[in-house]
């Protein structure tokens, strides 16, 4: 378990909670991590990031509920409204010096290592 955050489960879709897991890319440099989170249907102001000593929790509300009326058995009754992802990092980080930007639906977070 990442410090303080419950782990994500394997699917990109939580059909019960109406929550989606975003695709994530983590790049590591000698002194920092750059984390890119793909968040289609999200506006920058709807993104929330929380840090623990070695993990991030990214939460983002979609600009509209997403529904696939003809998909699957359970899925077609679900409205997907937000993204959520715990990103575990292999080193301790310094959240106080973290920076972020949001461009073309991709959240970029740079967080230095401790």
């Amino acid at each position, binding site marked *: 378990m990442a410090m303080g955050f419950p782990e994500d489960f394997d699917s990109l879709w939580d059909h019960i909670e109406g929550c989606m897991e975003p*695709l994530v*890319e983590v790049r590591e440099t000698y002194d920092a991590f750059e984390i890119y989170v*793909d968040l*289609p*249907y999200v506006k920058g102001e709807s993104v929330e990031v929380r840090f623990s000593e070695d993990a991030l929790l990214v939460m983002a509300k979609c600009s509209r509920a997403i529904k696939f009326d003809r998909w699957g058995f359970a899925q077609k009754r679900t409205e997907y409204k937000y993204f959520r992802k715990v990103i575990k990092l292999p080193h301790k980080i310094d959240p106080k010096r973290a920076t972020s930007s949001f461009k073309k639906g*991709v959240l970029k977070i740079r967080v230095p290592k401790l």
Partner: protein
Amino acid sequence: MSEEVLEIVMKKDVKFNEPVAVEGFPDVGLAGAIASMHLIESLGLEEIAYIETPLLPPIMVVHNGELLHPIRVYGNERLIVFTSEIALPLTVLNPLVKKVVEWLKSLNAKLLIALTGIPVENRLEIERPEVYAVVSKKEYSEMLSKHKIEVLQEGFISGIYALFLKECLKAGLPAIALVAQSFLKYPDPGAAAELLTSLNSILSLNVDVKPLLENAEEIRLKARDLLRQTERVAPGAYRNVEGELPLMYR
């Protein structure tokens, strides 16, 4: 496992006339897969065949209530498009590519064009991804320069398009790979749009790429599962070699 366990099963009787084949199997950023599916939809191509093999996991697809195989072939007498809705395990790649090239030769196909992406770290800063080409024979470079597409002169290539070029070279089937700058970890409709713009130029098609850009968010959302599958069954690591310098560089 034997290559004979993979076959192309025809669904329609098509009288091929020196067709051009386009493959957009899932790979980096799904640029080729997204492009091939948009190509099929835009041109209203019909499913003409599918791939049958026990090498794949037991997965079928349902669209509009119709049961379909995940790897399908669309087209008409002049154009054939290969696409897949599931990631292709490494063990399937060789037999699949060999069978497809063998089949295309038997149809007297005149050209194969592979559509794919190449991951670039600063993709987020790039408005319009560039498209490069790799050719199975140097002679095809001149044709591409007429379309203002730069041809790779030195370097490694890897992945399913490298296999297609290799098998086409062996079989004497002209082949070109179009490679768009792309995200590695996210579906990239922008890269797919640039691939189709180049394809439009080469094949004198008129595929409208605007829907790919206008519906980019929807495509990114719908393609997430395929991208994750692709990463899992054919890890992106083997594409890293493309950033390396070959020893015989001159």
